[in-house]
């Protein structure tokens, strides 16, 4: 759990720094910050083994950090540098850490779900014990790909965990307008899969639900759907003027800060001292500073032989 807090702090700090770099004009492109959603990323990934796979989304920094990625290489990718995870070709929306089992963020909403089916099938065919966890947003749950993927994973009993981060909005589209039902997890019934909704800002709730789904998958009993209710504090991307929600609503969710929640809990349970928490935060700040330094020292990629890299 202390590890979880540290990961969450790391994500928060990464995102805040990314935002600053962006504001300072050092980043060309777009970004989708996950501030406020740290518990769902960390809780989900902590329930996995290092050899398990994840598929991430456009809002993927948190997933990637939770899966153990190197912050320097992430930051370098964010800044489009040669030593970034994708050598500056992918950027924020495509950061992947293949060796760490993160098969990549994805710029296309819901696109990871059919791919997750393939990873699950691959594990089943090779009789490997690994599980694939696919992150996706509430918005993604209305794409056709969601339906096809859950159905196929269900009929073949694939070791896949469909993990929906319901942050209440798909860009400006509120779940109230996009869904005819209260719970996204209810959709699991259509595929005869277990479906649960958890407080996505409660690390332990997320961890618990995911651990159960992962155990089920690993035991060969098939896929599950988890809905983690959370909220993004920042706009969808940098062009967002937040016209579709109130400052009040944002403030109310900030009250439910997943990091503060976990920290308070750990201290209350005697698992953490205030001072340790401060030290952790300081350490994370250093890590991020080092990551930025690494990124800034990384060379710009060379445009010359780009064509040679398209095919294996």
């Amino acid at each position, binding site marked *: 759990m202390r590890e979880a807090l540290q990961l969450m702090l790391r994500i928060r700090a990464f995102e805040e720094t990314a935002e600053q770099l962006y504001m300072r004009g050092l*980043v*060309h*492109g*777009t970004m989708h910050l996950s501030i406020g959603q740290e518990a769902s990323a960390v809780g989900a990934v902590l329930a996995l083994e290092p050899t398990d796979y994840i598929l991430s989304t456009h809002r993927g920094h948190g997933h990637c950090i939770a899966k153990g990625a190197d912050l320097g290489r992430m930051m370098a990718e964010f800044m*489009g*540098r040669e030593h970034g995870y*994708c050598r*500056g*070709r*992918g*950027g924020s*929306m*495509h950061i992947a850490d293949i060796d760490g089992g993160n098969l990549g963020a*994805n*710029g*296309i*909403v*819901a696109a990871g779900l059919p791919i997750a089916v393939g990873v699950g099938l691959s594990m089943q065919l090779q009789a490997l014990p690994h599980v694939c966890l696919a992150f996706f947003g509430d*918005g*993604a749950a*209305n*794409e*056709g790909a969601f339906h096809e993927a859950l159905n196929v994973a269900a009929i073949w009993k694939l070791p896949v965990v469909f993990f929906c981060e319901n942050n209440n909005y*798909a*860009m*400006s*589209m509120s779940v109230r*307008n*996009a869904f005819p039902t209260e719970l996204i997890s209810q959709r699991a019934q259509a595929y005869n899969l277990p479906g649960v909704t958890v407080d996505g800002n409660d690390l332990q709730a997320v961890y618990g639900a995911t651990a159960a789904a992962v155990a089920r998958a690993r035991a060969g009993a098939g896929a599950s759907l988890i809905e983690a209710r959370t909220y993004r504090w920042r706009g969808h991307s940098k*062009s*967002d003027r937040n*016209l*579709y929600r109130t400052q009040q609503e944002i403030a109310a969710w900030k009250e439910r800060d997943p990091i503060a929640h976990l920290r308070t809990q750990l201290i209350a349970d005697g698992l953490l001292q205030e001072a340790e928490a401060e030290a952790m935060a300081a350490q994370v700040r250093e890590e991020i500073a080092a990551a930025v330094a690494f990124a800034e020292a990384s060379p*710009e*990629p060379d*445009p010359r032989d*780009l*064509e040679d*890299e*398209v095919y294996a």
Partner: protein
Amino acid sequence: MTSATQPYAETVTVVQREVTYAEAIREGLRQEMRRDPRVFLVGEDIGVYGGAFGVTGDLVHEFGSDRVRDTPIAEEVIAGLAIGAAITGMRPVAEMQFSDFVTLAMEQLVNQAAKMRFMLGGKIAVPMVVRMPGGSGTGAAAQHSQSLEAWFAHVPGLKVVMPATPHDAKGLLIAAIRDLNPVLVFEHKLLYRVKGSVPPELYTEELGKALVRRPGHDLSLIAYSIMVPRALEAAELLANEGIEAEVVDVRCLRPLDEATIVASARHTGRVLVIHEAVRSGGFGGEIVARIAESEAFDFLDAPIRRLAGRETPVPYNRALERSTVPQVEDIVAAARALVRE
């Protein structure tokens, strides 16, 4: 196809109101929606949010959320519902938030919208528009930066429009809305903020008519969308070197105004076809083929050349990204080389 006899654009002499490409589109939508109650807009985040690129802006406030209709993320249904509405009396204008997402709507657009009229023996018309921001230059990387127009230019039953100026962005869009066929309009993200003179009233620009944007006799630069302003800029630089380039704005890939293109090729004898899309399989090949098959062939003084996107996905890093797409200096260099051949 009157262009062959009327080869040059009239020079605008009066000072006109300047608005951006995005504003011109919004104005066109607003005016046509006021005129025709059948017109409605549908897409992701086009309402209160105002569109990912701000194009629909405040339209929802004037027309309400019925006619400026936000959808869930469901591109197949966005395209399909436009068809269903079009064949039962409405005039839908759908938006794909990025043209890359049209990959999720190909079935509806290509198998349904494009073919319905023909398959049903002409018993039906499908008057719908799909607007799509395309192109690179914003650091949005490989899945948000493509130029896929060539796919649709290959599909009988569709029309494909590539406006290069605010004037055309409005006029061609209005024509597209009034057209009885499915029309795809590819807008270029980098053009949205470009200003140009736009008549304040409603007007249409004929679909299927290319325009000679600049006369010249040394070579023809045949371009569309963002490559038109780049070609014009290149032409100015070339003029400083004594090279007079004729710039043809194709404007519409299907139907294609072959006459204007061939006339220009015949006139100058040297042709450089320019587009942002990947070179192989791009629409430039079609343009080259039309010229190579035509009577202009005998008038060519050099091989026809293409300048187009590199054979890679669009990369994220700014310098890499820039290198994958023709820039003004690339056009100048290619044109210079061509006139020397």
